[in-house]
């Protein structure tokens, strides 16, 4: 397998988190559909050149989130959930909103100002995409 995942050394986050995020994105984008078989832990480790324990941890976390399922002796697969891709994108949105709210709080912006800024940004993007 030619790796579809890449670990960045300039990324401040731990390697297992980088793996989790890239796998989530593959699934959210629909590249890895429900039932898709993920590479085995050792194969992915060799492929990305990270330790087996790091890949194991990423897979465990994804299992706990219900994103993948591991069948003993069979391998790991993308979970069947209804609209898993969409749900993952929703989650990402929530994280970004939380980060924005946090920053606004630090800057002392009130919720009306934040709302106005979000509307502005949204209009800007809608125009660009139209």
């Amino acid at each position: 397998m030619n790796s579809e995942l890449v670990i960045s050394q300039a990324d401040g986050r731990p390697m297992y988190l980088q793996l989790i995020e890239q796998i989530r994105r593959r699934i959210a984008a629909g590249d890895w559909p429900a039932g898709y078989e993920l590479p085995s832990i050792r194969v992915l480790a060799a492929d990305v050149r990270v330790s087996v324990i790091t890949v194991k941890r990423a897979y465990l976390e994804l299992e706990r989130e219900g994103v993948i399922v591991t069948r003993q002796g069979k391998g790991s697969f993308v979970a069947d959930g209804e609209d898993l891709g969409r749900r993952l994108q929703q989650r990402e949105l929530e994280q970004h909103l939380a980060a924005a709210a946090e920053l606004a709080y630090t800057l002392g912006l009130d919720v009306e100002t934040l709302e106005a800024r979000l509307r502005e940004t949204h209009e800007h993007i809608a125009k660009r995409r139209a």
Partner: protein
Amino acid sequence: MSERTPNGDSPPLRERAAAASARAAEHGPVIELDGVEKSYPYFRLQDVRMRLAPGEVMGFIGPNGAGKSTTIRILMGFVRPDRGEVRVLGHPIPAAQAAAKRHIGYVSEEMRLFGQATLEWHMRFVASSYPGWDAGYAKMLLRRFDLRPEQTARRLSHGQHVKAMLLLALARRPRLLVLDEPMTGLDPVARHEVLSELMDIVTDEGRSILFSSHHTQDVEQISDRITFIDRGRVIESSDKETFLERWRRLHLELPAGGALPVHPGVIDVRGGGRLSIVTTNAFTPELGAAYERAGARVREIQHMTLEEIFVAEVMASRKESLA
């Protein structure tokens, strides 16, 4: 598969016991060091312990002169410890080192090839002494490492020399690879080639690697376990994820005139005034909550790289010994 002999009897006890011990040797720990000590006039290795399981990669780190090479020499049977137990692949060391070494590939910085002989000559020489030699794999490694078999050893650059030594060790397909500073002096491309090869080896769950290195980035990337040694003592030997997870840097904002509460596991505090940066090796989410309860605001919680942990750990232990 049936274990019965053609006449329907179970295999004799002795055979079954031998088979069981062979299985234990394959599934038991690959390296076991317990309470290992060795004294030299100006250096003492104390209570060194470590365990490595099949299929695992262990990164062995520590400053210069910390005892990495001495420990490796002890587990290879080159140096007899004053005290303690050493088993490699189930064999007691140094007593049964010959049996263990059949399955160990060892490369150290100090080893040299015969200058006037070609790489091909070395390959034939190793192949003749080890029945496990895999000629096809050796050929593939020549290509991957960009080496030419007709080259004489003395014409090899440092990087080529290291890769040639690795090729000779890897192509034997040993169950355990012991590499003393294998990445030293390699350029980024050569390091990338070597790391890829090492990770390829452990796609086989039965093979293990112990490597010492100053290159913390390589260690962080491919190790399942990390053993950290400083001034002859093992400071830490645990799985990498647990090890990294315990270390964090917290950026705190204190209320005016507020003092930073003292928590165990905090090994460094930077900054004065209202902004403090706290380094801990015993992080739990509770620590952040405790600072918040004391009136501080946690602005950021950062993970740390192995390199940063390495420096923080050694600096902290030196500060302690000066105090």
